[in-house]
């Protein structure tokens, strides 16, 4: 067996210490030959988020986002609302991580305005877009209603969100980042939080999955594949075994 590991991520370092590999100073990359490499605990399971506190949002931003996700997903007889489902916590943790920094995307310049078919061309990663967008939203509601968004009535909040969605309200953002893009980002992230596995902080109690009848992380439907047009009898499970 020959496993020569030079490109050691932290995970691989830990794994390879356990496996006592041969480390050769003159090796050429990670060479695999002779046997399938296998080391214990080599997988990268997701880590459930800590639901307490805010990692990215200021308290004021967090209150605004909680109000917004509750208008996107109002609580009713079908499910709890976006806030109680953890959507704001979800967005906060996403913005505090690699998504918030676009750390895996192509962020080299030059940054120039593109065509709609060319996608987002701004230089702000999502964390910066939220920070700027929420400030501009506060400026707008204070200018129009003399209040922060979270202090508006439900009807006023819906009016503002519909204005952002439909193009009637233009926030003061920056070139390459439009009001519509800010709205779509918030809506997409809210839905991600509502429908993702609960380990990311949203979808508490698997509320959305129960609402639509999605069984979650079950991995075997061979017993139901040919029961056509019949309800699936089992409720959802989550990755960490919540039922």
């Amino acid at each position: 067996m020959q496993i020569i590991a030079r490109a050691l991520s932290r995970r691989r370092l830990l794994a390879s210490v356990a496996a006592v590999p041969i480390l050769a100073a003159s090796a050429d990359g990670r060479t695999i030959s002779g046997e399938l490499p296998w080391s214990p605990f080599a997988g990268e399971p997701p880590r459930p988020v800590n639901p307490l506190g805010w990692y990215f949002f200021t308290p004021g931003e967090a209150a605004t986002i909680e109000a917004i996700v509750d208008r996107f997903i109002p609580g009713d007889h079908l499910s709890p609302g976006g806030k109680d489902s953890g959507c704001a916590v979800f967005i906060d943790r996403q913005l505090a991580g690699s998504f918030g920094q676009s750390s895996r995307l192509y962020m080299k310049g030059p940054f120039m305005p593109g065509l709609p078919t060319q996608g987002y061309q701004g230089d702000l990663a999502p964390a910066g877009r939220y920070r700027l967008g929420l400030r501009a939203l506060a400026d707008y509601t204070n200018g129009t209603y003399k209040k922060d968004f979270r202090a508006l009535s439900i009807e006023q909040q819906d009016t503002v969100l519909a204005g952002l969605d439909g193009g009637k309200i233009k926030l003061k953002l920056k070139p390459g980042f439009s009001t519509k893009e800010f709205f779509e980002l918030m809506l997409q992230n809210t839905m991600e939080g509502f429908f993702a596995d609960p380990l990311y902080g949203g979808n508490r109690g698997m509320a959305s999955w129960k609402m639509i009848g999605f069984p979650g992380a079950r991995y075997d439907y061979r017993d139901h594949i040919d029961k056509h047009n019949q309800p699936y009898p089992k409720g959802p499970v989550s990755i960490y075994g919540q039922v």
Partner: protein
Amino acid sequence: MAKALPRKDAVIIGLGWTGAILAQQLTEAGLNVVAIERGPWRDTSTDFNVAYMQDELRYAVRKDLFLQPNVEAMTMRNSAGQTAMPMRDYGSFLPGNGVGGAGVHWNGHTWRFTDEDFSIRTHLTRRYGAAKLKGLMLQDWGVTWNEIEPSFDQFEYLAGISGKAGNLKGQMQAGGNPFESPRSREYPTPPMKMSYAPTLFAQTMSGIGYHPFPTPSANLSQSYVNTLGVRMGQCTYCGFCERFACGNYSKASPQTTILPVLIKKPNFEARTECEVLKVNLTPDGRHARSVTYLDANGVEFEQPGDIVAICAYGLMNVRMMLLSKIGAPYDPVTGAGTVGRNYCYQTNSAARMFFEGKHFNPFIGAGTLGQSMDDLNGDAFDHSKLDFVGGAGINCVVSNGRPISNRPTVPGSPRWGAKWKQATVDGYQNSMGFTSQGSSYPVRENYLDLDPTYTDRHGRPLLRVTFDFPDNDVAMSHYVSDQMEKMTKPFNAKYAAVSRIKKGWDAVPYQSTHNTGGAVMGADPKTSAVNKYLQSWDVPNVFVVGASAFAHNAGLNPTGTVGALAYWAAEAITTQYIKNPGALVHA
């Protein structure tokens, strides 16, 4: 200064489907082979964990297994008059990354292109006259059906494909695809079990004269021991297939079919997390000496080899040729040059229907759980009174009910608020759809080259994609959408709608990771970059293997044909090239 390494008989760039097939076949022939792979080592037991693979956010939305744009992006524009901008996130298509490549996270639709595809210009000219092809750069592939059919068979029996033959050596078979070209034997495993939506689709389409059949699937209907002695498991219809890796050993991939055998061979090694920067040629540009690569620590190495096989994703194959100056770059103005020409994509539309009181259970799914029909595909129907050539496969495939991305609502429903929620609940169990996957034919204006502005993390130019849907393909797709509207009628759905393709290819919404061409095979070195054996016309010890060799794209998923071409090229190397190295075809 790069560190020089000992010579190998063959250096393979990329360890996905084509790299693994070539490595397996070349090592069987006794060659010493190294495969150099940019991404990480990945395997089922360590990386595709059944305890957490069912994570839509991580794998489908954040695209954890895919190539990340910070490693390699591309620029795009719809026409040469526009300035190409980088796709800062991949959207319209999602290239793979790491060992196994896109073979890890594909859906598993495993088609054979038809005999008419391989000789498309000859066939269409004979049937309709040359004027019918005006404006299209359709050309024969240089290989015939009888030559390539055994290679399809090899790939299907490697992968254990589940399906039903429609044409066995010219004898039509009930329940299979009557429009397929003759195959030498039945599929290795029977078709998948069908859930409700594809069953209803097949019944309804049969009732109006179409010919549905089970979509040929690399998600296996039963366990299978393949031609290398590797055992695969039965698909569990888990609904986490495309964009995910399979935790059940039931989706054919290099990991589940080849690597357990290949890695044990003393004459093979894989180097992962090593990125090949270029292929180095001799000063006359006629012979490849070596490849230069960087390991994960940024140390540069030079690996000499007698044969260099470029086996990355098709688009990256073209970029590697351009960066290495293998062949002449295509010029869309003069038509000269071959590397970058005949870039094609896929021309799709979709039908969606909504009912009341149904239980479609969309979460019971698999990448290739479905029914298809080819009545409107390729040249299966008469085009003499139509203003286009080509066609589309019609597919009713239930791949998943993952709710972040897949929760259809009746068009016109709100996208948020209380009414959105009710519409979502109403739509989830009551909706089914089917899609058209249309051919994409080459035109002068659609091509690949190097971007003049944007570079990757090593300072090398990004690939630039110049593409829009050609008029011929738009006309084709609209014709097919018209037929799809008629197809929805007998379902008596409460609501039905068919989407239509429009000009202005959009790089943002996902459409298809079926990018083809750019280093196409053919009989004429003026119009093809590689010969019929996927050997570079210009640098004969370089083979370029993948969908980059497709001279056009059909209304069929490409992987079956990619696998066949890999076996076909490997056979040419092992039975012809190593006995007498040099050009296998003299133009």
